[in-house]
Each structure stands twice: as C-alpha cells, then as structure tokens.
C-alpha cells in the first residue's frame, strides 16, 4: 500500500535523482577537467569551469536535502548506515570537502592552480565511486548483514569493512563514475560554444558510453550472485530495463548524429532509469532484506509535518531553480 512513508521515500528518490543528474554531472566535469587533452585543452577546462561554476552549489544542496529528509523520515535506517558505512561515507565526505575547497581556491585563492587541479580531479573520481559503492552495498544486503554483526558484536572487519569492499559494490562504484562522466560529456556538448569543442566532448561522450556499458554489464553479472534482490528486481522488471536500454541507445545514437539536445535528454533519462530501477527493485525495503520503509519510518506526526514542509519548500524552490537554469543554461551556440 502506498502511504506517507512511501511518498516521502519517493521524494528522497527524486532528490537523489536530481543530485545524480546535476551534482553527478559536476563530478563528471571534474574527471574531464583532468583528462583535458589536445590543442584545445585550456578551452575545454574553461568550458567546464564556466558551465559548472554558477550552479554547482545549488546542485550540491540536493545531497544535503537527501540526507536531511532521510534522517528525518527514516531515522533507524540512517543510524544503521551511519554506523556500518562509516568508513566509505567519511571518505566520500573528504572527497566532497576537497572538491569544494578546490572550487574556492581556483576562483578566489592565490595562484596555485595545478596542485588544486589534482585535488579537484582526485575528489571528482573518488566521490562518485564511493557514492556508487555505498548504494551497491545497501542493495546487496551486505549492510543488513553487518548491522546484525553489530548486535552480536562481530569483528571490526565484518562490520565496518566487508559490506562495501565486495566486488558488487565496487562495480556499482565504477558504474556511477562512468555514468557521471558520460552525463557531463553529454551536457558539455550542449554548453560548448563552438564546433571544435563540441566534437571534443562528443568523442568523450561516446567513449564514456562504452565504459558505462562495460561497468553495467559487470554489475549485472555480479548482481546475480551478490545481490539476489536486485537481480530479481532488475531482471524481473523487464520493462524498466528495456526502457533503460532504449534510452542508452538513443543517447549514443543522438551523440553520434550530433543531435546534442536529444542526447542530453536521453542520457539524463538513462541515468534516472538506472536509479529508479534500483529503488523499485529493493522496494519495499530501505535496507534489504531486513528493514522496510514502514519499519524504519518516523512517527506519523513527523512524516505529516515533513510532507507539509517539503510541499512548501517545493513551491519556493522549483520556480527559483527554473529561474537559475533559465539565466545560466539558456544554451546558445555561436558558430
């Protein structure tokens, strides 16, 4: 039955989706910044900086929204994740801090670009990988197992290391990185102001699409053994998978034929479908296979207030976001 807890879980899904599409792409931008090559290297970097700078903070806030709504609505699950995934989450935070600092230093600090460029690049790689790893370890049921070990006081390795170092979570981490790089390259083809730059990022989009394919295949194969629920869910939900595949093919074909705007929409759809494929596959669990949305939910009064707050917030937020994107991403290509 769909009630308030499920609705709020849905909102978290939407916010996570928004973060993947915006903040995720910003991480991808960091990857391409490091991999900038050829005669247009500096111009590639400038384009990346210009297209990220005005919006990265707003994009980043999606993650804060996810965390805050999550701990308000599902405190028991938040508590478990904070305990079991302490190490990868802390490492992810370091990545986030490094990246934010690099942004600040590049824009306002004294000149020391190259060193901070490295920090930026490292952060842009490890943060998505760890985000994916965290998701992978939740999906595989390893977190639930480790949470049991906390109760029966298992060894340090069993509780705090094992859940996120298995092959499946790592594969999901790689997949997240590939997806974000792919998203960023696709967005940048639209943001680029001249044909040469567009071509540069078109090639990068196609290349990272191949990486996405490899990682996704690896994750799916591993899912059969390591994450039974996801395997049943994703493979069972043929419709979603077919739609994901269709979006992927559309994105690649559109990039190939230089229909960049179409490619951007298709790539965003592809990432969203993968995310929702995962969320629906583990429904009704927050932490499969033990903690359901209902079990983890906060008291009804909190959920009701939260829902009111979220609705009110959305009324202010969505027009503001639209305004910002209209100002900065109206997309003009000068030939």
């Amino acid at each position, binding site marked *: 039955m769909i009630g308030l807890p499920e609705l709020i879980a849905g909102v978290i899904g939407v916010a996570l989706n928004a973060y993947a599409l915006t903040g995720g792409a910003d991480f991808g931008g960091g990857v391409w910044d490091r991999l900038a090559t050829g005669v247009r290297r500096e111009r590639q970097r400038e384009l990346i900086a210009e297209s990220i*700078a*005005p*919006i990265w*903070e*707003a994009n*980043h*806030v999606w*993650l*804060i*929204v996810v*965390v*805050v*709504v999550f*701990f*308000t*609505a599902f*405190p*028991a699950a*938040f*508590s478990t*994740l*904070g*305990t079991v995934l*302490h190490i990868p*989450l*802390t490492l992810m*935070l*370091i990545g*986030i*801090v490094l990246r*934010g*600092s690099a*942004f*600040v*230093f590049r*824009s*306002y*600090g*004294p000149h020391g670009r190259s060193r901070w460029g490295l920090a930026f690049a490292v952060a842009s790689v490890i943060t998505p990988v760890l985000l994916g790893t965290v998701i992978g370890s939740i999906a595989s049921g390893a977190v639930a197992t480790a949470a049991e070990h*906390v109760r029966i006081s298992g060894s*340090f390795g069993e509780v*705090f290391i094992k859940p996120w170092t298995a092959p499946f979570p790592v594969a999901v981490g790689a997949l997240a990185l590939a997806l974000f790089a792919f998203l960023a390259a696709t967005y940048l083809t639209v943001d680029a102001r001249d044909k040469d730059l567009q071509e540069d990022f078109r090639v990068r989009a196609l290349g990272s699409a191949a990486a996405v394919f490899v990682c996704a295949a690896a994750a799916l194969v591993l899912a059969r053994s390591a994450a039974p629920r996801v395997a049943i869910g994703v493979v069972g939900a043929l419709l979603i998978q077919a739609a994901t595949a269709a979006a992927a093919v559309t994105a690649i074909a559109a990039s190939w034929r230089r229909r960049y705007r179409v490619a951007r929409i298709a790539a965003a759809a592809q990432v969203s479908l993968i995310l929702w494929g995962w969320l629906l596959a583990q429904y009704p669990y927050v932490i499969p296979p033990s903690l359901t949305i209902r079990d983890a939910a*906060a*008291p009804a*009064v*909190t959920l009701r*207030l*939260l829902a009111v*707050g*979220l609705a*009110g*917030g959305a009324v*202010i*937020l969505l027009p*503001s*976001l639209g*305004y*910002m994107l209209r*100002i*900065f991403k109206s997309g003009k290509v000068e030939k």
Partner: protein
Amino acid sequence: MALSLGFHIIFAEIGIAMPLLMVLAEWRWRRTGDAIYLQLARRWAKGTAILFAVGAVSGTVLSFELGLLWPSFMELAGPVIGIPFALEGFAFFTEAIFLGVYLYGWDRVSPRAHTVAGLIVAMSGAASALFVVIVNAWMNTPTGVTVEGGRFAAIDPLAAMRNPSTFQQVVHMLLAAYVSTGIAVAGIHAAVLVRRRRSNRLFHHHALVLALTMAIPAALLQPISGDTSARAVARWQPIKLAALESQFATERGAPLRLGGIPDEDARTARYAVEIPRGLSLLAFRDPDAEVKGLTAFPHDQWPPLAPVHIAFQVMVMLGTAMALVCAWAASVFVRGRDVAQHPRLLAALALLTPAGFIATEAGWVVTEVGRQPWIIGGIMRTADAVTPMPGLFVPMMVFALIYVGLATIVAISIASLVRETT
C-alpha cells in the same frame, strides 16, 4: 563534532552577515552612483562566495557526521529535529540558487532583480541560522516529547521548535553574526586607515562606514539579548547558570562573580571579583532571589566547570567591549564627524577585529559544554549517543584535519582578497 561545529559557526556567521553588507553596498551604489560602492559590493560578494562554498561543504560534513558519530542520537531525535533541519535545507537551497544568480548574473539580470537576489541571499542565510539554532535550543531545553523507557512515546515537532530557549538563542545568534562580521570587517579597514595615510582612503572609509552601520545597532542590542538569554537560562537550565557563575552553594542574594577560576575542591571561584547580590538581581530581577547552586544537583550532572565559567566571562567581556566601542562610534556619527579621522577609535576597532568571533566561540562553549553531560537536556547522555565504532579517535582526527584545512583555505583566500584592496 564539537570541533566541526566550532568551525562551522564562524563560517556561518560570516555567511549570514556578509550578504547583508554586500547588498547594503550595492544599494548605496545604485542610490549614489559612487563606483567605490560597486567595488565594495563585488568584493564582499566574493567574500560571501568563499564562505558560502566552504559553509556548504562544512554543512554537508555536519549533516553526515550526525549519523556517523551520533547514530543513536539521530535514531532517537531525528523525527523531532529533522523538521527544522529540513526547513534549513530549503533555506540553504534558496541561498545557493540566488547566490549563484547574484555572483554570475551582474550582466544577465536587471539591476532590480540583482539587488533582490542579494536580499534573498541575506534573508535565507538568516533563516538557515534560525532553523539550526532551533535544534540547538531544543537540545538545551527539550519540549514536545514524552519519554517512556528511553524512547519517545509521543512527539510533537512543532512544540519542540517552540521550546523555551528558541527565541533568546535565535536572537542572540543572529545579532552575534552581524556584530562579529561587522566588527571584523570594520577592524580590517580601520587597521588600513590607521597605518596608511594616502592610498585608497575613500574605499576603506566607505567600507568602514558600511560595516559599522551593520555592527552598531546589533552590538548595542546584543547586551539586552544577552540579559534575557541569561534569565531564560536561570529559569530553565539552573545548573548551567550555576556553572556559568561558579555558584556552588544555593543562596539568597547571590553575588555576581567577574573573572576568576572555579575551584571544585574548595567549592569557590578563586580570584573572582564579587558584586554583592548582583547575580540574584540580574537573573531574577530581585536582589534577594534564591539562586540554585551546583551542590543542589548530583555531581554526575555537573558540566565541566572551568571551561564553562571562563568562556562565559570571555564572552561577556568581549561583548561589552564591542558594545562600548560601537557606542563610541555611534556618538561620532551622531555628532556628524568622520570616523576615519579618529585615530584612537580606529585603533580600538582594529584591536577588536577578532573579538566577535572569539566571543562567538566562547558563547558556543557556554551553551554546549554547559549542557554536558547531556546531549539532549535531561533525556539522553552524550556518552550514550556516540557511535559504537571502535577507534573513534581516527574519524575524530580526520574531521579535525578537514576543518583545519578548510579554515586555512578560508584564511588564505580572504587574505588574498584583502590584499588586493590594500
């Protein structure tokens, strides 16, 4: 965690007050057409951007840290304090969006829209502070919950937000942000004006005047807010008041102790100057009122005495100093004189540059350490809230390093920003 918050509070203060300065400058520019104001607005906008970026990052760290370090606290309190945190999230989001518009939209939106964007940044910054301080106020004086067997049996998050500390703490924090930042900015420019006689005087003069415009009203109101806060503490958190004042015995007509070091064994504060009946008068508006002493409470509920007492003295002293200097500056303004021509006032301001931030940190110690051993006043002990993960000093060190790093970055960036103008 305390360390993270200790850093974050400074980032946040500047993040709240800097946008106000930047909008003030822009408004003056649009009214007068004086290009110096535009220069100032842009400069302060950069400062805001640095602080916001770092504040955003350190805020993210904090929201994760809640779960990473205090999982049990969050499991218990999440449903209660999540609501203000969620509202804070939205305020922060709004701030992020409009700061982006402000910083990168100088020639993309109309002048009016641009100023309004700046105003929204300033207001949503203040709103964020409101919601976060509400959470802290609730931890001090929890309401809206009924406890049964270590769990909350019934909760009412709205009643929790209206707990008895909320109003005083929010006002005190917001004023603190405007005073601290205003004094710091005024101090930096005053220092330049004192030392250098010629270069770019007008720029620093304008900056000084704007900063004082923000700092003076806030600094003069702050002692009043401090007084009402102390009275609220006296009523709702008597043990904290006793620790602040090193009041060991319960007595009528309790003295106000200035300075001194609390001595737990001798049950007295050494070297303190006592003003007879002062505490009873200030806290209860009655020179003969009874003040509960520490000995009225079990020893295991005492907060660490020395840090709380000393921090409180530091906060009050610096707050008073800032209020006095601001009153002096105000009298110069009222007489129609130029503040930049008063070398002694300038020197005093320059001396007080870090005073607001030090006072803020001291105030933070007062409210947080003063609440120990509780994480939620009278309901949950801090020791019971901490994560079961072994080797806790490792993440503690990691987070400490993160914050030292962030602070260094802010310092270097701001320094290079200040150097550009001098």
